[in-house]
């Protein structure tokens, strides 16, 4: 039997579509964890990356932090946080945020730092203050790279949020963990498919966001 058979069976089972263990509920939970973690990570990494990139200083410290954060195993961190903090959102958020910060931080820093210096020089020469230079000149040009960092973080967070189920939380990981425990392969594969689908949806989402927020003058000639 191929996995396609399992996938088909999973999705055609009507009972999978309602209730607290229904697909819509689980997707919403999964998105909630993902976006929350992504939001927190962006809230930390974007300002830090923008400011360090703008001033061009602290790049090495930043690379070090990012390297260290990347070395943390998300799954292990989750289990550890579960031991220390018990059941709840916090133990899930910590590994997810730790996962999402490095890509956002490094790309934002690098994106802003490598912006063509001549428009920046022109902007300063025209009398723009530092904030105006950052937000009106550097950011719009750095945006595609920053978005790629966010997207990469989003994909990893969506994938990793699945393991939240291991510490008794919801989300699409529930199907995989429960299915593995019950040796119900159909549910396992169905859940995995949904997670993969969600990650792909993230790519589509970011593609769309980029279309909307990145100036055609920057997107040009891709």
């Amino acid at each position, binding site marked *: 039997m*191929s*996995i396609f058979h*399992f996938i088909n069976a999973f999705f055609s089972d009507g009972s999978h579509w309602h209730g607290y263990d229904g697909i819509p509920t689980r997707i919403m939970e999964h998105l909630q964890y993902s976006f929350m973690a992504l939001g927190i990570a962006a809230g930390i990494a974007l300002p830090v990356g923008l400011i360090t990139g703008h001033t061009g200083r602290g790049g090495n410290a930043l*690379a070090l932090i*990012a*390297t*260290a954060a*990347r*070395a*943390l*195993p*998300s*799954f*292990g*961190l989750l*289990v*550890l946080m579960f*031991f*220390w903090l018990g059941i709840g959102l916090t133990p899930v958020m910590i590994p997810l945020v730790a996962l999402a910060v*490095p*890509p956002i931080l*490094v*790309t934002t820093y*690098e*994106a802003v730092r*490598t*912006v*063509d210096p001549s428009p920046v020089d022109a902007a300063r020469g025209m009398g723009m203050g530092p904030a105006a230079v950052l937000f009106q000149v550097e950011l719009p*040009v*750095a945006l*595609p*790279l920053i978005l*790629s*960092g966010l997207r*990469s973080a989003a*994909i990893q967070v*969506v*994938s*990793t949020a*699945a*393991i939240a189920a*291991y510490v008794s939380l919801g989300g699409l*990981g529930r199907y*995989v*963990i429960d299915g*593995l425990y019950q040796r119900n*392969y159909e549910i*396992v*594969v169905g*859940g*995995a*498919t949904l*997670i*993969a689908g969600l*990650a792909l949806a993230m*790519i589509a989402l970011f593609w769309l966001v980029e279309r909307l927020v990145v100036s055609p003058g920057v*997107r*040009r*000639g*891709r």
Partner: protein
Amino acid sequence: MSGGAGFFDIPSDLQHTYLGLIGEHLKEALIPVAGGLALSLPIAQLCVRFRWLYPPVLWVTTVLYAIPSIAFFVFLIDYTGATETTVMIPLTVYSLVVLVPAIVDGVRSVPQETLAAAEAMGFTSMQRYLRVELPIAVPAIFAGLRVATVSSISLVSVGSLIGNEGALGNLLSDAHVFHRSNLAVTSVVTTAVLAIVIDALLIGIRMLLTPWLPRGSRSARRASVDAVTGPAPEEARPLEEAAR
């Protein structure tokens, strides 16, 4: 039944000593990276040679990269069972996915004049690839290797979910089962230290291989960004053009 309760008292169900687990972990993490590198070199070369090939390859890698590890493992159980192989195949794919764009961009970043000069000196295309393009692409390749290795080391642990194939990750399941948080600490700390050590080792090798580069050079850092963002079909190229 689980012996003592110290950080390094490994429950007997894992059938490994602490060092044994480390060895196992490294094997499961590094073989895929090596395999990924071996596969990505020819693929990247094809993408460099036939430019039209690169966009579709990038799209495929982007999609593959988006498949969560746990989903990937699960899909494979049906074919390869709950074995090490099941863990190592996805990790190989992820490595591949990180390395191909890193190598392609690295090789493409070799200045046209350099290539022309090599050709003028009478290098065959193979010699040119091995002696000019690859060495210049080394920083980019290593940036990719670092990301692939570190994430591979982290992801092996997830293998414990599909039945004790997670090496050091298995300590996490045991921590859960036996309510021994110190096992989780051991697992996390050991994994993180492994990742950092291997990462540092890679940096060291890169520096040995590229004595001509200043430490912490720009191109190396730039490459690390490409590696962090993973494959990206339409990233940052205008930026680079604009920078010229």
